[in-house]
Every structure is written in C-alpha cells, then in structure tokens.
C-alpha cells in the first residue's frame, strides 16, 4: 500500500544572506504517513518542525530529497494540503468570515457556497457571532481558531498543523483536541501535527515522531497503541505516562546536548 504522504531524504539548507552561508535546518528526513493516519512531530525548539511542514506544503522547495503525495512528487502547494500556521497569520483587514473564506476564494468557489462553508466551520470552532469581527478584536486563542477554520474549510485531505493549540487555555485546548479528533475521524483526514506538548501528541496520535535537535532528523517513531475513541482520562493512565516518559528522555538528550554546545562555544 502506498503512503498518503511520504518524505524521502528531505534536506533543507537556509541561505543566510548576511553571512552568505548555509544553515542546515533538515538533514535527511524520511517519513511515511498512511492514509487516515494521525502523526505528531515533537522535538526541541528550532529543530526544523515548522520548516518541515513548509516543505511538505510546498512553500519551500527542498534542497535535496522529495515529497510524495499519493505516490506523486509535489513541489508546490495544492488543495490536497492545508496549513494551520504557528502564528495565526490572519489578514488584518478581513473579518473572521473573510479570513475563513480566503482559501475558497483562491479556489474560485462561488460566493454563496463559500459563505455557507465558512459559516459552518466558524460554528465548528465556536466562533459563531464573531463573523464580522476583525482580528484585532479577537483574543490570541480566538485568532488561532480562525486559523484552524481557514485550513479546514478547503477540505484538504492532508492537514499540516503547526502548534495550533499552543495559545489556547487548558479547557479550550481539550475541547479543540476532541473536535479535531472528531473531524479527523469523520472526514478521514491525514494529519501531521507539530506540538511541544507531549501529552497532546500522545493523546491525539497514532504515532509520535521525535525529531533530533537542529539539524532535524527523525530520531525515533513511537507508535501509540491506545485504543480509540480515547477518553480524556487516558492521560492519567500508567501506560500513557510510560510513553510520555520515553519521549521526554529522547528530547531531553538533545536539549542538553545543545545547551552544552552553547556553553562550550
């Protein structure tokens, strides 16, 4: 069976114009994500998670290696993938409705249908009544939910999510996690989910990928065998804590290694 999404030895070097040197952000990522799989990526800050999502989306061309969707090489963004950006990146001159509708406009969906679909997802993320508000009138968490709705509304097969719940309070975060699982189950999406919260990664995912420190590599892939549907209570079970500790120690190694490097140089 071919993977829904595959990264083959993806490398990425950023050109640093000031020093005219290269900064290696990704050093050969190999990853296969099956159709309908929910995969999280965790790793130390600055290890290239956002960069990897951008390459998968097609926003940044890989320096080497390639990305395949359904076995076909992709080099630019397409309606089969959508990103929930790390910083909400809303268009400040558009209302909530205008922002959520944005992707549909790019796809030239008719105004009437666009409005209907956008309204549906605004309700889904719990922002009904805020359709006509501008981003500056929303809290950080509300902006992030608009960001999520904006990605969902184009109905992508693959969702690329970059710490989408990082700015939410604990309660809203849990509600959103459950919503996301519902959407994922119902709409049979494939999700690549970046987070710093290890418990979030475990709770949501079929598999957690641990990245090494910069330059990013796949350090380990940890399957999460907890049965679905998962209740919130699983977060307090011993098995859950076992996985959590394993991931922690993997990341900790790299964080420590990096800090030592910094103090040495």
């Amino acid at each position, binding site marked *: 069976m071919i993977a829904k999404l595959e990264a083959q030895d993806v490398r990425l070097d950023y050109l640093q114009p000031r020093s005219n040197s290269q900064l290696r952000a990704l050093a050969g990522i190999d990853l296969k994500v099956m159709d309908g799989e929910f995969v999280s990526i965790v790793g130390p800050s600055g290890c290239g998670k956002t960069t990897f999502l*951008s390459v998968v*989306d097609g*926003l940044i061309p890989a320096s080497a290696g390639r990305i395949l969707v359904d076995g076909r090489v992709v080099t*630019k*963004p*397409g*309606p089969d993938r*959508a*990103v929930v*950006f790390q*910083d909400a*990146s809303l*268009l*400040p*001159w*558009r209302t909530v409705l205008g922002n959520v509708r*944005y*992707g549909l*406009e*790019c*796809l030239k969906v008719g105004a009437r249908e666009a409005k209907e679909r956008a309204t549906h997802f605004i309700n889904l993320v719990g922002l009904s009544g805020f359709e006509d508000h*501008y*981003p*500056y009138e929303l809290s950080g968490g509300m902006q992030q939910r608009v960001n999520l709705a904006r990605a969902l509304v*184009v109905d992508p097969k693959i969702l690329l999510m970059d710490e989408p719940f990082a700015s939410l309070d604990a309660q809203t975060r849990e509600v959103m996690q459950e919503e996301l699982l519902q959407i994922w189950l119902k709409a049979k999406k494939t999700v690549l989910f970046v987070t710093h919260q290890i418990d979030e990664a475990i709770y949501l995912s079929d598999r957690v990928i641990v990245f090494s420190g910069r330059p990013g590599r796949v350090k380990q892939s940890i399957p999460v065998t907890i049965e679905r549907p998962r209740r919130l209570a699983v977060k307090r079970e011993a098995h859950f804590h076992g996985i959590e500790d394993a991931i922690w120690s993997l990341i900790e190694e790299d964080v420590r290694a990096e800090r030592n490097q910094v103090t040495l140089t």
Partner: protein
Amino acid sequence: MPAAVRAYLAHERVILGTLMVLLLLIAWEGLERGWWADALRPLLGDSAQRLRLKPIFISSPTLIAAAAFRMFFVTGEIWRDLAWSSAGYLLGLVLAVAIGIPLGLAGGWYRRLSYAVQPFLAALNATPQVAFLPLIIIWVGTGLSERVLIIFLLAVLPLAINAHAAVRTTDPRLIKVAGSFGASEWQLFRTIILPSSVPFLLAGLRLAIGRGMIGVVVGEIYGSAAGLGAMINQAGARFQTDRVFVGVLTIVAAGVILVEVVQRIERRVEIWRTPA
C-alpha cells in the same frame, strides 16, 4: 472639578488652537494699526515706532478679509484664477496618481524593474524638482501642459516611493498564507499586496497634495494668463500685499480641505487597524 474647567478640558484641542490663531491675528492687526507702538511709547520712547508697520509691508487681517470679500463676492475675479489653477492642479495630480502608484507597485513587485528605475527615482528625489522648470518650458512652452508637468513632477515621487515601500514591506507571513492556498500571482496581488498597501498609498497621496501646491505657484510664474500663482506674483510685484495673502490663504485652504478628505478616507478604509 468645576463645570467650566470640565467644559474646557473636553474641548481643549479646539479652544487652544482657536486661541492661538486669534492671538496671532490680534498681534498682526495691532502691528498694522500701531496699537503696540502707541501702547509701548511711554516705555520705549520713539523706538516704539518700529512696531508700526506699513500696510504695504504687512497688510492686516481686516485688510485681507476686505480684499478677500471683494475678490470673491464683489468683482468675483478670483474664481477665474481658482478654476484655472484647479484645472492644472487636478490634471497634474491625477496624472501623478495614475503613473506614480502603478509604477511604484510594479517596482516593488518586479525586482528588475526596480533596478531599472531606481537611478531615475534617486536622482529625481535628490533634486529640487522646480529646477526642471526652465527645461519644461523649453520643451513644452508655457501654458497648461507646462503647469501640469511641473505639478506632476512634484507630486509623483512621494506616490511612487510610498507604493514601492508598501509592496516591499508586505508581511511575509501573509504572502505565505496566500502561497499555501495556491493563490495565483494576481490573487496574491489583489488579496494581500494591495490591501496592505492602502495605508501607504493614502499617506503618499497626502504628501503629494501638499507638494503639488508648490507646482501651482511656481508653474504660473512665467507668462501665465491667470491662476492663483500668477495672481500672487502680479500682486506681489505691485506691492498689493493684501491680495498676495488672499491668494496664499486660498491655496492653504484648498490644501487643508484636500488633506482632510484623504484623512477621512483613511479612517474609513482602516477600520481594521488596532485603535492606538
């Protein structure tokens, strides 16, 4: 707090502004009528006479008001000048907007075009553009096209430079959003670049309005049959100081009104801005 103080604080901006203007007008009127000379004579003796200025030198608010009333409502002569100048001004400004903004936007968008026009913009920016007036007269003679050209030349730079800067400072994160949703180049321009440029473009327009006014005056120095600038020049040559002031103040009023219009548009367009 007493009611009077509260009322003052509520309208402080208007009250202080009006008060300063009134003080200036009274001081001015007093110079022409010799109020200050008479009042200070016991103190300063004969040298107080220096505070009595000839109307030909300084005119006075009442003289100017009288002249304005005559020119606007009795003889009506100024309307012809106003219409004449407005025609050149509006043509020049429209031309500057129609060429400067697209040129600036395109320059911000296409790096090569930016490299190509940069030397001209830099040179034009570093010269006082009125220095081109003799050349313009050699090329097109005196008349409407000369006036339009000099106004255009003065107004086009802030428009082009602001449009250029607007495109270059577009938030790269928003460009990424558009790219991620597969926006075409035209969609990117229309949905991201253009809306985020609007505040810059309007600020450029405000600058252009003021600079174009310079063109009204200098463009009519040579051989213009009518116009506010020509009227100011002729009145100046004949020491009709009150008429000079009427002309200058008319231009000031026109500029203030135009800038106010643009500011209203700005407030309208930028309701999405975080109120400071």
